[in-house]
């Protein structure tokens, strides 16, 4: 889904970037040509013309000494430009090399320099500048050296943190294994990656220096009178505010517009040079057509969940929508475990989330029905969905260390659900939470309830997540790859726990996994998904003994423990296509050894108790590939 460039986004970026850079280019031109462009000498006094309002002779009026405001503004722009570039240059030249050096070198150097930086940063910036000016004396260039030194700490910290972050990247490890020297790693491998944040920091610094220079000149420590700078002009304006309030407008607006342009340009750069954003797949072939559901079936009496003809679309960044799930139908009986199997990007997780109504803002259900315990969910309001969630259907996620809130204790997180959903008192809820923690096989439950998620191992955190999901006795539990992030021996414990809890709580489970062997272990029935559609559904024994879809058969034979032969091991050629590039007709056809001309048309799902989406399912014999 991280595909396709963002047209609307690009357009809005250009809408900002073009005026911002136009203003800055204008500023540069005006500054260079100040002598020719300015109508008057910025220092020429004429006391008879003091404090005039704007007129044809003086477009922006005159100040207390009768000097032309427009001319002073233009020459002030030159000062602003030169000084901000000067200070930023000093900051970069001082900060970046030192930051790179201490970041890569580490140890004592790093410690000492960072303590010094901390000390400088803990003094208010303006005060550091004032002190440096106290040493060097007032004046523009001295003030800029002061600001350069001050802002070099920002560049130093930036360069250092980039080096520290990149140093941990695997590609740096790889470069060391190749035998690249430290200097080579720093200059050739790490340095190019510092450019994006550096450019952004430069724009931020130019803006900040402009503001600081104006501030220092305003209080009389920067540009000295009678020199024209935006800051000194504002000083004059402040003094004569009661006589001519307009004096404050031109220099103030000049500062705001310039700083705003620089900052906006920085924002645009940040959004466009960020890593990984450049991923782009050209909008290619017509998006695949897909079969609208042809069969309609009603939920049976003992069905907990009945999904019929489900289609889910997500927003592409260019504003168009494309389907990620099409024509999906299945049902789960009370107390049954149904497996949803397939590789990454086939739509398994979205299926789980669409049952809960939690696809997120980027996606929506466009067709089909989701019937949970004889209630139609697709037409439910947010409030109605909130009542169903937790009570009727709950979910366990893939990574237990990220699916628990790091800021609350685990007992708190279970008790909260019990309080909110079951109306228990604080005390009751806590007692029940401890009971549940005990029930999922965690020793010393009262003590463990007070632990924060990061204090638990992955397996233990997943047990907590399961306890929370089951706290309100839901009729359906959606388990999204609940063992994928765990070690294999822990996976076995968790799978046993699921089965054990199902005996006690009697809930049905929708078990989403990419691992066919896990499905073989825990499921009663299995649905195999490929590229957003169901390709095969069968009883677990049947599916593993005699897969009927070539994709199922291919996956089975590719499992590491499917055989103990030496390579070449069986493979499926190619890779799973991204949703926008699904072929018309059979979506597996490009990777299938059995595909024919006829596979280019739409293929429907056939069968009742066991189903397959392949026109050659009855004619070819995949056999038991195990």
């Amino acid at each position, binding site marked *: 889904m991280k595909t396709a460039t963002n047209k609307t986004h690009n357009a809005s970026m250009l809408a900002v970037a073009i005026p911002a850079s136009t203003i800055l280019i204008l500023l540069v031109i005006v500054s260079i040509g100040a002598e020719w462009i300015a109508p008057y000498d910025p220092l020429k006094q004429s006391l008879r013309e003091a404090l005039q309002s704007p007129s044809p002779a003086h477009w922006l009026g005159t100040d207390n000494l009768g000097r032309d405001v427009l001319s002073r503004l233009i020459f002030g722009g030159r000062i602003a430009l030169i000084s901000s570039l000067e200070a930023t240059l000093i900051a970069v030249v001082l900060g970046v090399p030192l930051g790179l050096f201490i970041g890569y070198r580490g140890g004592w150097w790093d410690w000492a320099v960072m303590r010094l930086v901390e000390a400088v940063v803990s003094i208010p910036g303006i005060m550091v500048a004032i002190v440096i000016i106290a040493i060097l004396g007032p004046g523009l260039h001295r003030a800029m050296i002061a600001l350069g030194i001050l802002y070099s700490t920002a560049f130093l910290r930036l360069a250092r943190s980039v080096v520290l972050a990149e140093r941990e990247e695997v*590609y740096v490890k790889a470069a060391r294994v190749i035998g690249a020297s430290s200097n080579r790693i720093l200059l050739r491998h790490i340095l190019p990656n510092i450019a994006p944040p550096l450019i952004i920091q430069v724009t931020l610094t130019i803006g900040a220096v402009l503001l600081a220079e104006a501030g220092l000149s305003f209080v009389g420590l920067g540009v000295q009178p009678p020199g024209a700078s935006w800051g000194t002009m504002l000083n004059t304006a402040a003094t004569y505010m009661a006589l001519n309030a307009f004096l404050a407008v031109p220099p103030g607006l000049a500062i705001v517009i310039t700083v705003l342009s620089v900052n906006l340009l920085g924002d645009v750069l940040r959004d466009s040079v960020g*890593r990984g954003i450049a991923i782009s797949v050209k909008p290619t072939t017509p998006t695949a057509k897909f079969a609208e559901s042809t069969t309609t079936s009603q939920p049976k009496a003992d069905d907990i969940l009945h999904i019929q003809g489900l289609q889910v679309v997500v927003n592409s960044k260019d504003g168009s929508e494309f389907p990620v799930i099409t024509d999906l139908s299945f049902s789960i009986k009370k107390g049954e475990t149904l497996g949803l199997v397939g590789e990454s990007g086939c739509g398994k997780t979205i299926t789980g989330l669409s049952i809960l109504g939690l696809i997120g803002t980027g996606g929506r259900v466009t067709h089909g029905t989701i019937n949970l315990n004889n209630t139609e969910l697709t037409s439910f309001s947010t409030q109605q969905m909130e009542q169903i969630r937790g009570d009727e259907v709950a979910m366990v996620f893939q990574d237990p260390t990220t699916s628990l809130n790091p800021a609350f204790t685990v007992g708190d997180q279970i008790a909260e659900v019990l309080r909110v959903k079951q109306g228990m008192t604080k005390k009751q809820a806590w007692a029940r939470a401890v009971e549940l923690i005990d029930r999922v096989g965690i020793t010393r439950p009262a003590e463990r309830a007070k632990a924060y998620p990061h204090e638990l191992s992955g397996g233990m955190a997943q047990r907590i997540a399961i306890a929370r999901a089951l706290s309100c006795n839901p009729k359906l539990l959606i388990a999204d790859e609940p063992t994928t992030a765990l070690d294999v021996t822990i996976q076995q414990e968790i799978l046993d726990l699921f089965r054990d809890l199902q005996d006690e709580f009697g809930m049905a489970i929708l078990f989403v996994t990419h691992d066919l062997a896990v499905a073989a272990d825990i499921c009663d029935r299995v649905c195999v998904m490929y590229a957003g559609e169901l390709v095969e559904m069968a009883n677990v024994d049947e599916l593993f003994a005699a897969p009927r879809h070539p994709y199922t058969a291919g996956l089975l034979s*590719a499992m590491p423990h499917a055989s103990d032969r030496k390579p070449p091991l069986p493979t499926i050629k190619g890779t799973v296509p991204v949703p926008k590039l699904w072929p018309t007709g059979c979506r597996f056809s490009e990777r299938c050894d059995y595909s024919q001309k006829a596979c280019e048309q739409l293929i429907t799902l056939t069968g009742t108790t066991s189903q397959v989406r392949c026109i050659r399912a009855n004619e070819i014999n995949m056999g038991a590939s195990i």
Partner: protein
Amino acid sequence: MGDKPLIEINDLWVTYWARSAFQLRSKPFHAVKGVSLSIKAGQTLGIVGESGSGKSSLANAVLGLVPVESGTIRFDQHELSAMKTRYPAAVRKQIQAVFQDPFSSLNPSMTVEDIISEPLRVHTKMSNDQRRKLVIELLELVSLSKDHLKRHPHEFSGGQRQRIAIASALALQPKLLVLDEPVSALDVSTQNQIINLLYERRDALGIAYMLIAHDLALVHHISDRIAVMYLGHIVEEGPADRVYKNPAHPYTKALLDAVPLLDPAKQRARRAARKAQPAYDTPRDAQVGCPYKNRCPQVLPKCQTQAPAPFPVKGGGVASCFLVADAQPTSEAL
């Protein structure tokens, strides 16, 4: 080739010193504890273990990415552990690596050509034309083409990125390739493509592999020998077929048993034989006795105090378990 191994590791310890900003004392964490093993030229040793077993630390020590606390690593006449991660170019050229995460192991700011030619730039004085010719050859070996030369890593799928990493690692024709979980981030249908590629390259070039993975079944396909690690120790080592089909150590058995079978009926029978267990939450680091004693279903009283030495196993290899020793009390007499 003779009997002399290409790489020989003897009683290796790798220790990290956990240092927090406020603590004056630092605590040692022993990631690898007294590991000994060897790999012959052109052979593959699979190293299997769960997270925290120290298998990646072992790989990093061989690659000179972390310093060795004690013990020796001898590689082809060179004593690596004495070099303290500063390997001379002659050694670096011979040991290359492929890492797990294909999304962070390639520098995002470099092109495919830069990435694959980087080892050649560092170690050889080829002309630009020669180098480009070789890079194209390497790309074709891993089923990519010269159209990909100027692309950046983010334009490739996980499997393709791993192919690029392999091409770069093979550029210098190393004698040893360390593969740290090379396929675990990939989809099932892509995994075998990479395994097949590695296998084919090994036989064509005669490289030795040190293959680190968490999946015994996967390792077994291309390994000559397999070592199983648990909490920094090697608990079992031996010929791949023997370890996979007749595991001797209770931990190896547990690892194999924990992988669900693809046959639901057999899997049902197997799980009926065991019952739900509480969460494993005993301290990770067993200070005395057998490292596996806290989880072992067959733990003996003496396991609490004595650490079992490696005992020879019937069919080849060793296992550090008293049960193995007791099963073959008179192995010398046979």
